[in-house]
């Protein structure tokens, strides 16, 4: 637990070298399951490259938003960090120690105490047959933490910290008796009970009503202030990331396209995908025709992770794609102020030109045509 998270405003980040968690070259590849014949002949039917080599730093006390559409690999990244899914390649470092290979060791227990996950669906995360009390106490029981009589007190404390007061009113109920917002608070209590340092939150509010969302978000931010938590906030909603994140990382098809302080990434994106996402994120304000004209509505959908385009994986849909993009994948270039973008245009710190309204034909590339990108009407 650090004090670094307490004495600063939300707009700044922690001290730049206080890296709590680091991913280096992390990859998660899944083999496409073949039929019986394939298994006998040991034929590979393809690889799903869910995460295809990312470097990520999580700084102590910050809220880092991992933003992406479906197929971007953001959820898989979160699962790797909480060790629900093993990584295929890469190094993981937590608080200076290498935690790449913890499977089957006792150290895994200590790891799980310090890094927890909040799931997306409060209706599914709770076992319908398990009481709230059992649910919140379970981490303590499984990991043999504390004396049995202290566990009940810790459970109640966690429930109250999550806003369910008095805890005794809620503890012995079952999930179906609670509303969505209350259930998500139970999930948060379950994550808090072991007093973790890092919480990976995977779309924690997307299934809740709008007016409930803000309460849960407030709770999460308050908890950060009180306990010095660090959040990896996974979401598809760029606007939500804009409101609560210190830094934003944008993922596309298994790679990080851009990362940096929230203000910079949103206000001056250096990657065309980020620029397009920002331009189409709806706002609670009727757009003027001038604003409408600035929308970059990309054609087609994200290709599936088994057919990743060569070169820059975004090039088939990119309005600026040129020859180099089709053959060589750009690394993340530093564009100043702690912001980096993976784009050949960003090399040398150039900023993006203003976009036209619509991208016409997608740039043909062998892999892209396999997916059947649709044409604009």
């Amino acid at each position: 637990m650090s004090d670094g998270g307490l004495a600063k405003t939300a707009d700044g980040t922690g001290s730049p070298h206080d890296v709590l968690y680091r991913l280096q070259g992390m990859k998660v590849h899944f083999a496409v399951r073949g039929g019986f014949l394939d298994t006998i002949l040991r034929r590979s039917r393809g690889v799903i490259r869910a995460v295809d080599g990312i470097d990520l730093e999580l700084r102590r006390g910050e809220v880092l938003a991992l933003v992406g559409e479906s197929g971007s690999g953001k959820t898989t990244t979160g699962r790797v960090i909480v060790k629900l899914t093993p990584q295929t390649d890469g190094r993981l470092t937590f608080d200076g120690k290498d935690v790449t290979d913890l499977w089957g060791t006792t150290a895994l227990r200590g790891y799980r105490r310090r890094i927890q996950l909040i799931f997306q669906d409060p209706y599914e995360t709770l076992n319908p047959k398990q009481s709230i009390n059992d649910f919140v106490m379970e981490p303590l029981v499984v990991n043999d933490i504390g004396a049995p009589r202290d566990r009940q007190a810790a459970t109640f404390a966690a429930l109250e910290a999550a806003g369910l007061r008095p805890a005794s009113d809620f503890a012995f109920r079952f999930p179906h008796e609670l509303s969505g917002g209350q259930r998500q608070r139970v999930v948060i209590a379950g994550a808090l009970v072991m007093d973790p340092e890092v919480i990976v939150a995977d779309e924690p509010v997307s299934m809740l009503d709008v007016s409930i969302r803000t309460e849960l978000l407030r709770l999460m931010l308050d908890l950060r202030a009180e306990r010095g938590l660090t959040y990896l906030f996974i979401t598809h909603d760029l606007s939500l990331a804009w409101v609560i994140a210190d830094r934003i990382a944008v993922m596309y098809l298994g790679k990080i396209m851009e990362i940096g302080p929230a203000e910079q990434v949103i206000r001056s994106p250096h990657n065309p995908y980020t620029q397009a996402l920002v331009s189409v994120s709806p706002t609670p304000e009727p757009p003027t025709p001038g604003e409408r004209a600035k929308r970059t509505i990309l054609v087609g959908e994200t290709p599936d992770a088994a057919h990743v385009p060569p070169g820059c994986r975004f090039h088939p849909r990119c309005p600026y794609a040129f020859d180099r993009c089709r053959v060589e994948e750009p690394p993340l270039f530093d564009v100043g102020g702690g912001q980096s973008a993976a784009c050949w245009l960003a090399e040398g710190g150039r900023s993006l030109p203003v976009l036209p309204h619509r991208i016409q034909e997608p740039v043909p590339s062998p892999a892209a045509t396999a997916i059947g990108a649709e044409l604009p009407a």
Partner: protein
Amino acid sequence: MGLAGTELGAGRWSGTGRRARDFAARLLGRSDGLVGVVILGFFTLLALSPSLFVGPLQTVLSATGTPLEPPTSTYPFGTDELGRDLLNLTVHGARISMLIGLMATLITIVIGSVVGIVAGFVGGAVDNALMRLSDFFLVLPTIVLALILAPIILDVIGPQAEFLGIRATLLVIVIVIGLTSWATTARIIRSQVLSLKERMFVDRARVIGSGPGRIMRRHILPNVVNLIVAQAVLTFATAVFTETTLAFIGLGDPAAPSWGQILNNAQSAGAPGLGAWWYIVPPAVSVVLVVLSFTLLGNALDDVLNPKTGQRR
């Protein structure tokens, strides 16, 4: 949905009584549930203490009637070829048939559940192996398997074995039924487990560090219990019926008059040819009623315990 804490009462158990009453109301509100419970209740009562209703089991020595008498006021179900009161035999038969059914069901359910849960959850080679094994048992016809296994099991347990008043030959039937029926249960439970293990709360149990054993016990099992109960009831029906069949073809214990055994005796005594319908009808009707009631109850339970509701919010 925001219910205040006090409405449902604080404390662990106050909800349970209400849930039990809810469940009973829903079960008995259905026609199949009601009929099943009534018939089953009736036969259970008879089975628990048959002597209370008709006196001790009549044997060759204590037979009091004239052989093969049609039903009279003294003997409402008539007599068998030894002069025994068929009402007496049929009521005692309830106990034997249902006890055998119960024991066989227990074996089936225990093996079937364990195999189903482990195969479904662990997956991979273990799943493959267990499923091939269950396929084997599924495919073989029960009667054939019974005929083959009976002498083997008899050898194993010894001819003097007895359990709860059931002697060796009937114990063999119990074990045979158990062994041949577990495969269906295992398959059904396994498919439920397959979908359960993808659910988010299983992931959550993993992320806090639970091992597979704990997950299977605390998360998977409670969520298949309903299915197991419904399966058990249906298995019971099958077990009673199978026992009747096996006893009828002569694998039973002549001294323990289960309904199938009574039918076997009727067959040997030539009752059909002699027109002694009273010898055949009571045990046959009893089997039909019990199997029917279990089936109705099983279906009702399945619907009540495993509702397929869509709405969540």
